[in-house]
Structure formats: structure tokens, C-alpha cells
């Protein structure tokens, strides 16, 4: 039998010109197009205002000098360094969620990884500013880089501060690369549905992504490799930050446990910050289908686990101080708990060791307001942890004749508040410009479920 003419068959095939969009796209892109509520504008306004206040204070500090900060002999590392370490710590959860949980194939990460990655990038950007703010004459901060100069000088690579420069700049670069690569497929989704300036921006950033086999194959491979690179990186960064302290001979700093204890503390505070931002986000934008109680349960479990590692770190520090029989070490730790900074120490112990214990109970892990409250307490506790380590360490060194008391001044507190404003401002703008949940990764799970049935 003669087959019918080919084109006549093909001609009958017509593509549906207006296919319905998927619910996932509608929901997740919806966050960007959600009407700007008065609450959002108020938060953004407050954030911008605190950034402006901090910026003005910083300019004043550059003009007057570091004297307006609370530095006093013998404490020359104060609130700026504390806040630096705090934000570097916050930056750890994003990479942990994106890289380490990716390598462990923990699929629950898919709906929180994008937001957490963004928080990583913003936290590193926030932290990095504090190095410049802390050194005072920040226009000379490039001296830390090994650049060829007339004097034939090179930097000292044996200094932990030099290691820190390399660790933080590598971490910032790799987090941005990781964040951008993850965004590409979602930018294409946004591009296909956007109009106006958004269309232009997404088209440029999506790099012509169409989801072809070649594109996905190299994309998956890149994400895998970056995860492999970011995993040791994330563990190294806070280790290196801890060595800024541990390499010295200051009592209370000179401890080998610092690296793992700082890394655990970083993940602890990072997860808490993720919870602090995601709980209101889920509520406001109605993302309950994507960020479920299961996610909160897992986040709370991470907080509980890392809280215990941090608690073990504190216990070990005290034990070793006693066991070492080194008097300055013992005095330093005694004064932490019962000296002039006792409030900071007991705040830290309550927030970091006691408060998270409620997460032994499932109802507490899955009740958003409890998780939010404890996460906020942990954020406070982790800032105080650095305060305790840095300030009590420096103010009570070997010679009692040179002991001194440090109190943060209004300038430091304004700039500290500004760092929260800066971080929140970037996050608030981010959720309106980019998809806050990794759409293609959520689809991967949804399609997998459709194909194979059952939950994964």
C-alpha cells in the first residue's frame, strides 16, 4: 500500500499556541511578581535606613579615626571583628546545604538551597566590609594582597591574616560562581515568561539556556564538581578564621579545638539564619507546598546537632583550661563565667546550649514560631560567642597590670546594626528579582515523583 504524502500528515499537526504554565512556575515566579506590600516596603525602608546610618557613621569614623570605636588598651579587636566572624559564620549554611547535602543526595535541600546560597553570598559580602571597617585606614587594605611594588616587598604568608585573605576571597568567588551556575536554568524559565526590563535582564543572564542535553550534561557536571570543591572549602574557611585566633598565644584562643568548633558554630548559626529568613518568607508568600514542615524538621535537627558540637567545644575548652594547670588559661576561663563579661557568657550558654534542646521534640521542630524564636536566640548567642572569645580573651591576658575593659560604642553598634540592614536589604531585593526557590530542582523532584509515583 502506498503511504499517504508525508507533509499532509505533518500539516495536520499543530502545536498548541498557548499551553498552560505549570503550577510550580506560577507559584515560584509568583514570589517575584507578588505585589509590593506595605510590610515589605517598611522592612526594605528600615534596612536601607540602617545602611545609610551605618555608612554615614563609617564616613565619620574614617574622618575622625578609629578613636570613635570602643578600642582601649589592651583590646584592639572589637565589635567589627566579632561581626566579621559572625557573618562569615552565617555564610556557611548556604554552601553546606548546596554542596554537602548535594553530595549526600539529600533531596530535601532542593527547595531551600537557592535562598541559602543567596544568603551565603550576601553574608560574605557583608563580612568582607568589616575587614575594611576594622583596619581604619581602609584605603590601605590592599597592602594585604601580594602585588609587585617598588619596594620589592612581599606579604608574609606565614601570617593567619594572610591565609584569611585568601580563604575569604576564594569563598566569596566560589559562592558567587556556584550561585550563578545554579541560577542559569531558572533565569531561562523567568526569561520565557517575562516582559520589559526583566525580559532583557533574564535573557542576558540566562546565556541562551534552553535545557538541551549538552547544556544539562555540562551543568550537572559543573554543579557536581563545584560541590566537590566547595565542601572542603567551606570546612577550611571557618577553620582559617579560627586560626586568626588559635595561632596566637592569647589565653582562651590558643586551642587546637578551635577549627572544628568554629566550623560547627558556623553551620549552627548559618542554619539558624536560614530558619529566621525562611519562616516569614514561607508565611508571607504562601510557599507551604514547597518549604514544608519536613524542611523545618531537618533544619531544627541540624541546629540541635551542631548545637551539641558547639556545647562540646565549650565544655572541652573549660576542661582543658582546668586540666592544663596553666594559670593564665584557668583565670581567663574563670573570668569568662564570673568576671566582668559574665552576662555575655551566660547569654551565650543559654542561647546556644540550652535553648536548642527543645528540638528533641518533634512538635517543637515543626512549629514555625518555636523554630523562629530558637533560631533568633541562636543568632544572638553566636554573636555573643565571638564577643566572649575575642573580648574576654584580649581584656584578660597574662599581666593583670594591663587588664582593661572594652565596651562597644554607638559607632560600632550603628555599623553592626547596619550590617543586618545591608544583609536584609540584599535579601529583600533578591526575592523580587530572582527565583528564591530553585525552580528546576523542585521540578526534578516533581517529575520524578510523577514518573515513578510515591514520595521521595
Amino acid at each position: 500500500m502506498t503511504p499517504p504524502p508525508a507533509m499532509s500528515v505533518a500539516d495536520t499537526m499543530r502545536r498548541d499556541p498557548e499551553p498552560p504554565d505549570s503550577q510550580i512556575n506560577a507559584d515560584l515566579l509568583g514570589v517575584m511578581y507578588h505585589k509590593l506590600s506595605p510590610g515589605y516596603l517598611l522592612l526594605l525602608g528600615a534596612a536601607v535606613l540602617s545602611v545609610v546610618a551605618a555608612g554615614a557613621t563609617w564616613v565619620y569614623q574614617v574622618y575622625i579615626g578609629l578613636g570613635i570605636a570602643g578600642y582601649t588598651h589592651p583590646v584592639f579587636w572589637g565589635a567589627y571583628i566579632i561581626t566579621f566572624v559572625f557573618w562569615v559564620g552565617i555564610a556557611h549554611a548556604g554552601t553546606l546545604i548546596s554542596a554537602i547535602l548535594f553530595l549526600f543526595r539529600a533531596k530535601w535541600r532542593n527547595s531551600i538551597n537557592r535562598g541559602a546560597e543567596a544568603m551565603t553570598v550576601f553574608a560574605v559580602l557583608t563580612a568582607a566590609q568589616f575587614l575594611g571597617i576594622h583596619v581604619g585606614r581602609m584605603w590601605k587594605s590592599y597592602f594585604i594582597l601580594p602585588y609587585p611594588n617598588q619596594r620589592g616587598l612581599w606579604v608574609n604568608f606565614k601570617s593567619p591574616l594572610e591565609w584569611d585573605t585568601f580563604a575569604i576571597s576564594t569563598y566569596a568567588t566560589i559562592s558567587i560562581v556556584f550561585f550563578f551556575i545554579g541560577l542559569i536554568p531558572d533565569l531561562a524559565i523567568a526569561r520565557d515568561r517575562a516582559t520589559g526590563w526583566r525580559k532583557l535582564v533574564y535573557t542576558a543572564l540566562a546565556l541562551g539556556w534552553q535545557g538541551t542535553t549538552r547544556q544539562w550534561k555540562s551543568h550537572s557536571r559543573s554543579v557536581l564538581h563545584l560541590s566537590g570543591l566547595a565542601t572542603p572549602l567551606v570546612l577550611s574557611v571557618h577553620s582559617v578564621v579560627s586560626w586568626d585566633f588559635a595561632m596566637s598565644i592569647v589565653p582562651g584562643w590558643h586551642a587546637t579545638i578551635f577549627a572544628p568548633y568554629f566550623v560547627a558554630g558556623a553551620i549552627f548559626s548559618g542554619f539558624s539564619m536560614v530558619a529566621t529568613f525562611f519562616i516569614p518568607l514561607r508565611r508571607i508568600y504562601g510557599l507551604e507546598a514547597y518549604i514544608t514542615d519536613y524542611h523545618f524538621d531537618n533544619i531544627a535537627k541540624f541546629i540541635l546537632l551542631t548545637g551539641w558540637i558547639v556545647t562540646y567545644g565549650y565544655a572541652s575548652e573549660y576542661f582543658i583550661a582546668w586540666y592544663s594547670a596553666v594559670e593564665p588559661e584557668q583565670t581567663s576561663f574563670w573570668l569568662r563565667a564570673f568576671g566582668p563579661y559574665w552576662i555575655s557568657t551566660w547569654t551565650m550558654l543559654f542561647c546556644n546550649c540550652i535553648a536548642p534542646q527543645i528540638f528533641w521534640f518533634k512538635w517543637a521542630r515543626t512549629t514555625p514560631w518555636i523554630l523562629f524564636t530558637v533560631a533568633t536566640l541562636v543568632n544572638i548567642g553566636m554573636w555573643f560567642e565571638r564577643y566572649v572569645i575575642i573580648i574576654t580573651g584580649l581584656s584578660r591576658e597574662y599581666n593583670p597590670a594591663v587588664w582593661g575593659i572594652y565596651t562597644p560604642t554607638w559607632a560600632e553598634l550603628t555599623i553592626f546594626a547596619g550590617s543586618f540592614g545591608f544583609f536584609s536589604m540584599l535579601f529583600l531585593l533578591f526575592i523580587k528579582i530572582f527565583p528564591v526557590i530553585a525552580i528546576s530542582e523542585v521540578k526534578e523532584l516533581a517529575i520524578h515523583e510523577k514518573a515513578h509515583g510515591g514520595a521521595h
Partner: protein
Amino acid sequence: MPSLVGIFETPGPVAEAANRLKGRGFQDLEIYSPAAFEELDDIILEKPSAVRLWTLIGGLIGVVTGYGVTIWMSIDWPLVTGGKPFASIPPYTIIGFELAILFGGLATLLGLLVVGRLPYGSFGHTDPGYSVRFSSEEFGLVVECDERDVPEIDALLRAHEAKEVSLVDED
């Protein structure tokens, strides 16, 4: 030559249909997917992605740079500490490690762009076979074929759960 595009709901049938088409000698295939699925990875490009070489070479250049820069600089500007060699390897390992990650990561990004051929196409234009449905939740399998093969491919795609098969409009 005309191209046909089959639209699918799940990746498994796309993989089966593409393998069947390849078996029948249709080599000019393209798959559009809304997310990454392992089953689709090796159908069109059989070899593992060359991005791995980029990462490896970047990482190696990084580690060599890290040690090289630190050792050379400490010899060029010696910080003399009695009786000790100028270059101190343990702390330089940190720089070597960080630069291995940094260069490895940047090379991975570059590898993605080169191996994945990004940026792709001309600004604001997509392939004729592409559809916004593929950035929704559907899969597309595009086959370029002779006109006489159209009915066969149409039947094959539909036999593999293609919910629609249509002709690609060549602009």
C-alpha cells in the same frame, strides 16, 4: 528537511524513544528538558562531560600557583628567622589549597561555558524546536528527518507516550 517535535510528560519515554530513533539511524536529535535527569544524559552525547578536565587542570594550576607564589616570594623577600629555611611549607599549604579551589572553581565555570556552548544562539532568540513548554514541565524530543520518514517518526514518538507530535516551524 522537516523536524518533528514530540512532547512528553516524563523523561523515561523520551530516553526510550530517542534510543529507538538512534537505532533506526536518525542521528539528528535534540532533547529539551525542564530539569536534569540522569537517564537523558548519555543519549545524545555518549562520553562523560569534558568539564571534569577543566576542573582538574584548573585545580592543578591553582595548587602549583599557590605553592609557587609563596615559595618564590619568600625567597625574593626573605624574612630571616634564625636557622630556619625561608620557605615554610605547612602554612603555604593553606594558600596552595585555597588557590586549588579558586582556580578549580573558575575553570569549572569556564568549562561549563565552553563545553556547554554558552552563551548560546543569538540574543533573544531560541531554537525553532524550542518551546516555553520545555521551561514548564514538559520534555521535547526534536528529530530532523526526511519528509518520507515523518509518519514513521510520528508513530514511534506516539508509541512512546508522546502526548503531542508536531512539525517544527522553521523560521
